[in-house]
Each structure stands twice: as structure tokens, then as C-alpha cells.
């Protein structure tokens, strides 16, 4: 049974595309057949972060409009053979997405892939709505600051009301996970950033992982390599562990501040 996972946030610039690339690459590295779709029509970025921007011929919109077959648009990753990328169009806009078209493409992908990761655009309009609409699970990417947390909260409300699963009305809901990105222990400890505890208190969903603010993330994006493939960097390791937790493994959430041991236990209590 394949799973559709949406990576969403509401706010822009929090690391959705980086996270979508890292999570999909992480899933594929474990041998799961994975496809990552760029829903940010008009602001095509995922292909660059995945390092396949020169290989884009047909895109998601071409497939939706019937101008190309899905097989023609899918780009197989050269490093991980279980990973494929479905890039989006840079010249069109979100209006080119239709609910029926998205459903058709996802249904077709479900037949071939174990995991389909949807990289949502920022905002809560058409592109973001359709990215989350058919999802089974959601990864809500949040930075430890108030505006990002509030936007994530809004998105969680939409996940619980404006999606295919929610509209069935049988009480089932999308499983939402929190991925806290660009986290800086020192700044959080000094009160410049919100603490993990505060964010979890407001959002009230299980924590999938904490990705430290790291130079390697930007570097990896620039060379078109998902950061999860850099097993030396702290961010890469954090993503690898987050993928493990997404698959149901019990991995302790690591934070480098020793004296906050009490907090670890609390976090583990939430993820269990």
C-alpha cells in the first residue's frame, strides 16, 4: 500500500523543499521506491535541489494536461535508483493544477511507488491545497519562531478540514508530523528562538525530528544533492533519523544541550 506524504508549512522559506528532497532521498536510500513531486508551479526549485534541472523535458503540468505521459516526465535519480523526481513547470501558474488531474497522476504513481512525497508551495491557496488534498500523511515543516508556528497551526487546521480524508467525514484524519528545521540550540536556550517545548505545546502533534541550522544545508542545495546524502553533517544525520521515525522506528531525538535531559524524556513521550 503506497503512501502519499505532503511536506507543507504555510510560511515560505522554512525548508519545505529541502526537507521534501531529504525525506524522499532518505526513503529511497532505504530501498523504498519513492517519487517526489514539485507542486510549486511557476517557482520550480525541487529539481535544482535534487540536481536534475538539466534533465527536465516534460513536467507535472504537461502530464496533467495530457501533453506527455507520466513516464516521460519522471526523472530517475542518477545516484539512488529507487528515487524519481516529477518536476513542475516554471512557465505556468497554480491555476494549471486541477483536482482531477492531480488525482489521476497520484493514482498512477501509487501503482508504481511505495512513497509519493508532495513538495507543497508556501501559502494556503490552490497549489498548497491540492498538494495536501490527497495526502495520507503530512510533514509540517516549522521554524522555531512565532510566525512560522502560527502558519503551521493554520495549515494543521486545513489538513483536518480541507483534505480528501477529512471530507470523507468518517472521523479519520491525516497523520501529521512536526519537523522543526533551522533549529539553533544556543539561540533557543538564550530565548532568541522558541524552545522545542513551546512549539510542541502550541502545535500539539508528534515531533518527527529537529534539524539543526547548518551551513551544509545551503551547500548541499547549491550542488544539487539532498542533504540527507551527506552523512557527515549534523543536518544530514538529523534527516536520516527523521526518516527512520517516519517509518515507525523508535529513535531518540538528539539535542546537543546536555542540561536539558528532562526535556528529552518529554519529547520521547510525545513521539511514542
Amino acid at each position, binding site marked *: 500500500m503506497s503512501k502519499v506524504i505532503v511536506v507543507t508549512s504555510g510560511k515560505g522559506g522554512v525548508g519545505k523543499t529541502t526537507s521534501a528532497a531529504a525525506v524522499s532521498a532518505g526513503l529511497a536510500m532505504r530501498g523504498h521506491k519513492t517519487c517526489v513531486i514539485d507542486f510549486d508551479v511557476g517557482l520550480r526549485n525541487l529539481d535544482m535541489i535534487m540536481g536534475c534541472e538539466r534533465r527536465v523535458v516534460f513536467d507535472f503540468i504537461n502530464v496533467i494536461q495530457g501533453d506527455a505521459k507520466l513516464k516521460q516526465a519522471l526523472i530517475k535519480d542518477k545516484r539512488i535508483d529507487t528515487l524519481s523526481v516529477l518536476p513542475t513547470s516554471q512557465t505556468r501558474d497554480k491555476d494549471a493544477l486541477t483536482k482531477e488531474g492531480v488525482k489521476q497522476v497520484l493514482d498512477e504513481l501509487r501503482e508504481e511507488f511505495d512513497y509519493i512525497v508532495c513538495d507543497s508551495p508556501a501559502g494556503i491557496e490552490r497549489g498548497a491545497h491540492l498538494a495536501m488534498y490527497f495526502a495520507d500523511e503530512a510533514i509540517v515543516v516549522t521554524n522555531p519562531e512565532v510566525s512560522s508556528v502560527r502558519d503551521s497551526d493554520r495549515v*494543521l487546521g486545513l489538513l483536518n478540514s480541507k483534505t480528501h480524508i477529512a471530507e470523507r467525514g468518517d472521523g479519520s484524519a491525516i497523520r501529521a508530523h512536526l519537523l522543526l528545521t533551522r533549529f539553533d540550540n544556543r539561540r533557543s536556550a538564550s530565548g532568541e528562538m522558541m524552545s522545542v517545548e513551546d512549539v510542541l505545546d502550541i502545535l500539539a502533534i508528534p515531533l518527527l525530528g529537529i534539524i539543526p541550522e547548518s551551513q551544509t544545508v545551503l551547500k548541499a542545495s547549491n550542488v544539487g544533492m539532498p542533504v540527507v546524502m551527506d552523512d557527515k553533517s549534523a543536518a544530514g544525520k538529523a534527516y536520516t533519523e527523521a526518516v527512520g521515525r517516519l517509518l515507525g522506528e523508535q529513535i531518540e531525538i538528539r539535542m546537543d544541550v546536555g542540561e536539558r535531559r528532562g526535556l528529552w524524556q518529554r519529547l520521547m513521550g510525545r513521539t511514542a
Partner: protein
Amino acid sequence: MQSQQVQQNPAKRVTTLKPFEIRGRFFTAVAVHLTGPADAAFYQALDTQIGQTPQFFDSAPIVLDLQNAAGFGSSEEMGLLVAQMRSRNLLVFGIQHGTDQQMQAARGAGLIPMSGGKDKPLDRQRPPRAQAETPAQKAPEPASRLITEPVRSGQTIFADRGDLVVVGPVSSGAELIASGNIHVYGTLRGRAMAGVNGDHNARIFCHSLDAELLAIAGLYRTSDDLPADMRKKNVQAYLQDDVLRIEAIG
């Protein structure tokens, strides 16, 4: 030149000038059923009727029903009848249920042959109202509303006929609205408006107060006006002499 311009742009002319509008219109006419020829006896009976209820027939629009009436096959005959009736201030304008010949005659006499329509006894008395307000037999729905999920930013929860109970946090940017009391078993960071239909006795209860706004019956306080020592406390808010008071409970 000018008329040409107007012709080139007829759509604009219609939208700007609007010489007429077309609307549907229903109105009531009085149907007079004729049962025999329009002889002296007929006019006598008619005069008697008018004498009894002069206001009812005064300037009333009238349709002649010819279903049970023979004759009136010529325009002259029809015209005579109409003239007689109009002289009594009965404004005949159409006929119904006539034969083809009668319809033709009516057209000749300047009447409109009507089709369709239904007769209804002209009764000035309205049916008693109590009949419409028979109480519903099914049990009333519970007036209070229970929410067991976190209330997210951007969501509005409205309990229009009673209390609102939320088990879970209420995020900043969320709104709770109730005609009765509001209970939050969790942190209240959003807005809560109780007694919105003007109930001054409504109250707001929450386990941890961090609200953007509290309001009861339209009187409100924003987070800036909330007493600092009540923050994150288990509190209730209520109205006392038109002042929104907040006090710790438990």
C-alpha cells in the same frame, strides 16, 4: 455621426439608458362565472350584488368565465356586456374557459383571452396562524457544542444556541464564539466571545489564560488589558456592573 456611434455600441446604450425593465408580476383578479345570457335578470342580480358589497367590486379587475355560458359568440354581444359592466365600474379585461368562437369574439371586443390560472375562493380571512406553529415532536438537539480536537489558527467555532466546550488548546488566531458560556480545558491563546446574543450572565472558563481577546455580551478586553498576574492561570471571566472581570479559580 452620433447615431452611428450609438449603433456601434448598442450594449453600452442598453446598460446606461435602461428604457424599461421586465419583471414578473402576480396579482389577483375577480372571476365572474356567467351561467346564462346577459339579460335583464342578469344585470339586476349584478346590481344587487354590487349594492351589497360596493367596495369589493369597486375598480376590481375582472375576468369573465364562460365555461357554463352559451352565446357571446359575436364581438358585438361581447362588447355590449363589457360596456354594461364597465358602466358599473367593473373593469373587465379578459375572459377564460371560452369556446374558440367566444375567444375570437372577446379579442374583437378588446378583451384578453386567458388560459391557465386557478380559481380560489375569495376569502379575506387568513387561515389561523397557530396552525403553522404546531410544536415539533422530535427531541431538541443539544444546545451545547463539544470540541475534542485542538482549535487551530484561522478556525472559528460557533455554538449558536448554547455553551461551547473545548478539550484541547485553542491557538492564537482561532476564534471561539458562543451564545452561552465558553469552557476551554487547555491553553486559550485565541479569541473567546461568550454571550454573543447579549447574555450578560455568560462566562468564559479556561485552564491556562493566554488569550488575544475575551468578550462577554460585546464587552471585551484584549491581551494588553488582561491582568498580568492572571496569565497562564486557571481563570474565569464574567461581567459585573458592565465590567469584564477576570479571577483565578481552583
